[in-house]
């Protein structure tokens, strides 16, 4: 079943097309990847889907509902979570507090519940705590839960960012270069974490530079170049696509060298 449906999506900044006429279907239970050289519009695409930017053309629908113009907080409550390219965490808070922040969107209790300590408030506090712990554990960082976010290694921060996104109980998670800044030898572990997400009922759409990781991970790959679709298909199709090899694979290999 198609979870996220993007049709003719475009965004112009000034006179430049950052993203132009992009179509993409994200299937439920799958891992879909977006790749492309720097400046190909990958992050812009994410920002458009999540509502940080307003598209100038096209539409986005999620679960059959049009979300083209919805704001980020509505996207999150609708079931789309995201992480950022540079890890965004609340540095002065512990990892547990960070992930608890992800529970805000699922909390129904208000100020009066808090003041009068209503049963709803108690129930919800306990539930939030459990869900946050579970998310931390799922991402393999529960032992760091009382550490400040600024005090833990990069990889733990990245995992916590995923846990925070998971705490919002998404159906789809957008990961923007989740393995960026992680040492090469740990990307396999991180890939395993991503691979385990669909089993939890969370479909994945990710942007990633590390080709080796993508090829072993994604079910479908969209290749962007200059904001437009260059190719779409399974990893093996992409690997054998001459356009892609010319435009992207060659150039990244050069970059990496």
């Amino acid at each position: 079943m198609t979870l996220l449906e993007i049709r003719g999506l475009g965004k112009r900044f000034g006179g430049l097309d950052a993203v132009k006429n992009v179509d993409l279907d994200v299937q439920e239970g799958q891992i879909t990847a977006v790749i492309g050289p720097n400046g190909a519009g990958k992050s812009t695409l994410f920002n458009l889907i999540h509502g940080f930017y307003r598209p100038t053309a096209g539409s986005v629908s999620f679960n059959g509902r049009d979300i083209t113009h919805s704001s980020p907080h509505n996207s999150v409550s609708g079931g789309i979570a995201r992480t950022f390219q540079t890890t965004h965490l609340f540095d002065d808070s512990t990892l547990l507090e960070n992930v608890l922040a992800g529970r805000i969107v699922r909390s129904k209790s208000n100020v009066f519940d808090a003041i009068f300590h209503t049963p709803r408030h108690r129930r919800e506090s306990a539930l939030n705590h459990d869900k946050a712990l579970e998310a931390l554990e799922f991402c393999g960082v529960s032992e760091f839960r009382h550490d400040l976010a600024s005090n833990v290694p990069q990889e733990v921060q990245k995992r916590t960012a995923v846990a925070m996104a998971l705490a919002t109980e998404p159906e789809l998670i957008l990961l923007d270069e989740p393995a960026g800044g992680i040492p090469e030898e740990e990307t396999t572990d991180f890939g395993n974490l991503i691979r385990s997400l669909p089993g939890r009922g969370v479909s994945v759409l990710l942007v990633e530079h590390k080709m080796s990781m993508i090829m072993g991970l994604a079910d479908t790959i969209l290749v962007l170049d200059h904001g437009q679709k260059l190719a779409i298909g399974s990893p093996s199709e992409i690997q054998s696509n001459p356009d892609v090899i010319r435009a992207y694979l060659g150039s990244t290999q050069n970059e990496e060298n």
Partner: protein
Amino acid sequence: MNALKNPRILGTLAVLLIIALTPVAFGDENYIMRVITIGLCSAIAVYGMNIILGFTGQLSLAQGGFFGIGAYAVGLLTTDFDWPFWQAFVVGVVGTSAIGYLSGLIALRTKDEYFAIFTMAIGFIIYLTISRWESVTHAHSGVNNVKFPEAGDIVDFSNPTAMFYLVFIILLASVYITYAIRRSSVGRTLLTIRTSEDLADAIGVNVGLSKQLAFAASAFFGGIGGGLYASVVGFIGPDAATVDKTFEFLMFILVGGMGTVAGPLVGTMIVTFLFELFQDFQAYRFIVLGPIIIALVIFAPRGIVGYLGGFIDKRARKRRIGSARKDGSAGANDSDQANGSTPARGSTGTDAAGRRGTAADTITTTEEEKK
């Protein structure tokens, strides 16, 4: 009683207890009781500031204006319109909150410096209205003989000690509300906005609405503080609504600690005491206090309670990090055996020991302590 083991709560209760007992020491000294009671009124308004500045991280310069609206509502309604205190008080507080809510409609769209400048304009407009609208507010002649709260024959609120306890009880409620908000997901929402609006947005926080409600809440407490103040002092003039008032509040909260539960009260009481010391040179006190505020914000921005709290947190965290490490890795191992099919968990479980070495200093020291 778990709460009594928490040094934060204990400290707050101790401060409250000391203040509750002041009438025992100064009950006969009307002037001192009055100064303390006025301080408590300010503290209530400062709790409002704490919600918008301390929790939400937005500098509101309208708090003095809201204080003024509360004061003038009670002042004018109980004198010119001869309403009983309580009705005037309720109308004043509701009115102030409503004004806060409505101006919040615009404030919610602004952020950072724009928010500060916007609220400064709101504060100034309120002040201008109060000081210029002579036919209603009497402008600089002010309002005389504001009524005391009525209580039938039970209590006589013209007695300074009785008035003190009335304000004190309302202050207690403010402290408790701050505490409850701080611990709930509502408080978490506001703190999230303080740290990063973009990140808050990304995890599903409705930043605009939260800001608007926080601003309305700050107005609510401002109105309460102002309304009580009018009754305590009996006479009010436009200076109850000036930007200077806002600045006093800022100073109180800065000294005590922004975003803390006890900070506004502690700060207000200490600075009120300082103000009394500088009493003789009222007008010039800012020659000393101006540089103090700058020094505070540069060298000690967390305030007294902020620093104490930080110290307590650090100790508690060290202890908990230690135990989390122990049961954290144990937990991961358990789940390995029970459920080897989740690759993410399995691999990190074995990985944990190796990664521990790279963790920050605090972690290794805790482990050494535990040995």
